Structure formats: C-alpha cells, structure tokens
C-alpha cells in the first residue's frame, strides 16, 4: 500500500501507471470481444476510410476497424511482453542466484554462457530462434525471454555476491537454515527491489522487441492483429491512409512510455541515490 502511494505521489509514476491501467483496460475489452467492431471482419465497402464516428481510427486496406485491431493488438503485445519478461526474470534470477551463491567454476561457466548470449546480437538471436521454430506468439515469447535472460542473471548475480558475505546470512547458517531457505528467504527477498525495477524496464524493451519482430513479419501472424504488423502493413499506404501509420505508432510509443515512466519512478523510489538526483 505504501509502495502504491509512493508511486502515485511520483509524477512519472502517476502518468506511467495511468497509461498502463488504460492499456490493460483496452486489452481486457479486446480480449472479451468488447471492441467497436470485429477486429478481423472485412467491411469491404468501407476500405481505407479516414477516422469517423463509425470508425474512430479509420479502416485499413481490407476495411477492418483500426481501433478494434489496436485493442486486440495491445492485448497481444502485453501477453508476449509479460510472458517473456516473466520467463526471462525467472530463468535469469535463478542463474544469477546460483552463479553468485556457488561462485568458483559454476559461476564462471554460467556467466560465460550468459556472455555468449549477450555477445550474440539480440535481434538476430531472436530471428534465428523464430527461423527454427517458425513465427508465432509462443516463439516470440521464447525468443524475447532468451534474449533478456542474461540481463536478469547479471542484475541478480552482483547483489548475491555481496549479500552472501553479510552477517545475516552467516547468522542464518549458524541457526542451521538450509541452503534453499537462505536462498529463497534471505537472498531473493533482498533482491526484490532491483528485480522489480528491472522487470518494469524490461517490459518496455520487450514491447519494443515484440513490435520490431512483428514489423519484420516474424511475430504475430496475420490476420491476427499486432501493433508492429499493422505499422508494416501501413508502410505502402502512408500517402493514402496516414492514420494507419499514426495510430499504431502512437499506441506503441505510448505503451512503451508508460512502462518506462513507471520503471523510472520505481527506481527513484527504491534507490535513494537516484531519488536525491531527480528531486
């Protein structure tokens, strides 16, 4: 509750939270089928209509309603972003935690593996995974998760190295706490703050990556709506129907902005050093 208050008291946090809640609401309406029109229905007679009372954000080349497609597209982007970041945070945290805790050769092997993934160009790694498995929602989730896992591993490993030398960990050992208990109760709980900030910022990157993959035609497959794909389809129509470029572009930008603002606010709140700087 105190955290929520702190976020709402922070200007960036307030705007970020408002954007995220609005997007979640639109995505929910989209998922429940409560869109103004069927997002895949083609109103052939109303092809490339500019924004109007019937079609608030106009229609595309096939006469499909842009707003309805955006609402479903936001949901699709959110599902991919949350699932991929969740997976990356889980896998990366476990790798970072064990690498930091065990140290020695296990640390060396695990972190060199992470270095390999980091040295591999992110978008090309995602493209390679998609080429192997074939494009689709699950592939996008897996590809983005693999790309971001090393970042979480690094975020967790550093603090784990310093935390394991702290007195309270020695005390827990003296009391006979098991390794699993110390890792889950003492270490992981102390890592919640940096992890939360990283997760929020990673959500913004994941939205960006998902939109990029869809733009290249390697994410969500048509006729399912996706923000990046909508932009890609609008490329050749920018002169006749600029709204097809403007609305998805603004939607992607605003969504990423929401998570960036929220992440910044969280970082300010959880890290006193940055708090001083931004206040």
């Amino acid at each position, binding site marked *: 509750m105190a955290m929520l208050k702190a976020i709402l008291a922070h200007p960036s946090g307030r705007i970020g939270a408002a954007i995220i809640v609005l997007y979640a609401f639109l995505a929910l309406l989209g998922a429940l089928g409560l869109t103004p029109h069927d997002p895949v229905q083609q109103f052939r007679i109303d092809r490339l209509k500019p924004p109007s009372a019937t079609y608030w954000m106009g229609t595309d080349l096939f006469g499909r309603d842009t707003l309805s497609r955006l609402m479903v597209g936001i949901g699709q982007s959110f599902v991919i972003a949350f699932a991929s970041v969740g997976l990356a945070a889980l896998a990366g945290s476990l790798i970072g935690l064990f690498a930091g805790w065990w140290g020695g050769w296990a640390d060396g092997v695990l972190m*060199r*593996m992470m270095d390999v993934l980091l040295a591999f160009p992110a978008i090309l790694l995602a493209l390679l995974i998609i080429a*192997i498995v074939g494009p689709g929602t699950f592939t996008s989730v897996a590809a983005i998760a693999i790309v971001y896992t090393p970042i979480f591993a690094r975020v967790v490993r550093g603090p784990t190295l310093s935390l394991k030398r702290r007195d309270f960990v020695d005390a827990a050992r003296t009391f006979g706490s098991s390794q699993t208990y110390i890792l889950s109760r003492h270490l992981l709980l102390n890592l919640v703050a940096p992890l939360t900030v990283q997760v929020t910022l990673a959500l913004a990157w994941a939205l960006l990556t998902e939109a990029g993959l869809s*733009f*290249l035609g390697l994410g969500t497959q048509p006729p399912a709506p996706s923000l990046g794909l909508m932009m890609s389809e*609008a490329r050749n129509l920018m002169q006749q129907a600029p709204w097809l470029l403007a609305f998805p572009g603004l939607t*992607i930008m605003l969504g990423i*902005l929401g998570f960036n603002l929220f992440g910044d606010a969280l970082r300010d709140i959880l890290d006193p050093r940055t708090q001083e700087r931004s206040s």
Partner: protein
Amino acid sequence: MSYLARRLSTFPLILLGVSVLVFFSIRLIPGDAITAMLGTEAGLLTPAQRQALAAYFGIDQPVFVQYGRWLAGVVQGDLGISVTYGRPVLSVILERFPLTLELALLSMLIALCAGIPAGVLAATRNERPSDLGIRIAAMLGQSTPSFVIGLLIIYVLSVVFGAVPAMGVFTPFRADPLANLGQLIFPAITLGFAFAASVTRIARSSMLDVLNEDFIRTARAKGAPARSVVWHHALPNALIPVVTLSGVEFGYLLGGAVIVEQIFALPGLGRLTLDAIGQRDYALVQGSVLFIAFNFLIVNLLVDLAYAALDPRIRLGRR
C-alpha cells in the same frame, strides 16, 4: 594477470560459445541450403549434382566434422564460402561492413552532438521548464521504436517535401561523399534519435552528480565564470558514463540495424544476416554472427579501457 590479458583470455571462450550456438542452431532450421539457393530448380538436380554441390560447400559431412572443419578454417581467417554469393564469406561481410560502420559512427555523432548539450542544459536548469521539456523529449525518444521514427521521416520527406531518400544501391563514401551522406543521414537520424535520448538522460544525471561535488563549489567560490565551471570543470568529469553508454550502444549498432536497414533498403550487415538466415546460407550466417560478436567484444573492451583512462581513480581488475 593484467586486466587486459584476463579479458582477452575470455574472448576465445565466448567466441567459441557463439560459434557453437550459431553453428548448431542454424542447422535446426527446416529446409536445406541447396534447395533454398536454387529454389524450384533444385528439383532438376540429379542426385550426383546435388552431392557435388553439397561437397563443394562442405555440407555433405556429418555435422560435427563440418563444425571441426569450419572452426579450423576460422582460426586461419577462412570463414567458408557463401552459398548465396558463391564467394568467400569474409569478402561478402567486408563489403557490407563499411556501410554498417559508417551508419553506426554517424548515429553516434548525431546522438552525442544532440544528447550532450541537451543533458548539460537540463542539468544546469534543474527542475525549470527547459529541464522538464528536455526530460520529456528524452523519455519520448527512448520510447519510440526505430521503425516509427523511420517511417515518420519517410512520410514527411515523401508527402511534405515530395522527395524520397535514395534506397537500394548504396553509394560508398569514397565514390561520392555527398550522395553517400544523403543516403545515410536519414537512417542515421532514425537510429540516433533513441541513442540521443539515452545520452541526454545519462549526461543530465551525471552532470547533476558532478555539479554537487566539492571541487565545483570551490571553482565557483574562486569566481570562475559559470560557463567555464559547467563546460571546463564539470563536463569532462561527467562524461565517463556517457562514454560507457555510447560505447555499448555503438557495439550494438556494429551488429547491424536490421529494422532500419530494412526500412531504408540499405545493404548492411544486419540485413545480410537476416537474408542469409532466410536462404539457409550456413557459412554466411555463422561468419557474420561471429564477426558481429567479435566486434561487440572488442568495442566493449575498448570502452572499459577508455573508462579507466578517463578516470585515473579507476583501476580495472583490482579489488
């Protein structure tokens, strides 16, 4: 062991990991290289012809033998023959690399020229309207995907000015500097936009830290002009995080900007690799990914060394 030697000693290991990952994963992609290369004409090949082609490209052997042979070649600077181009992979990569390098340098130049003054201005006017304006612009810049900026630029150029940037065939700088810059300036602005936003944010936050330091107070107390305090005393000290960020971003850009290259139809390293994946050109994918990873590691090492050179208090590798 010195920091440099220790870092360099991890390079072969990381590159070996990258090579294993790319070599075996690309072979998991359904379809074979010869069919991808010849398309429907592959059906016209006799088994003997297919076998001869496979032997020529070295893909007729068991996969571990292929890897061993390829790795032995890599060590000697031979990255294999591209199925698509019928030429050594290294020569294909080196043909595309100047564009990628130039685009990365130009984007970094734009980002630094816009980002550093904006960050300094925001820090010196902390919490004033100009600071808030710059912070909002930087946040928007960081939140805008490159393809949105790229398409917006193309839209403005084509619809408002009736001019479309030259696409397709790339003009090297040496052949025609003006045409070359005209071709690369818009892709560079596209890439430099988000880059500049990051530079602005880090420059602002670093400047705010430095402006609160004692030596700045001393300089002010001694009567140094405000402009001199900001640009001569504070800025050099605030540049270290900017150098780090720029170096890392530059390292990423050297890997090719797949999306921007796609939008502006530029034949860079990113599109080369993307197309090579589509064409199952194993040797080319392996070679270009390894080349990109190598550049990335070198740039990151240089960033760390620059970091130590800029701040004598930092001694790399010492605990």
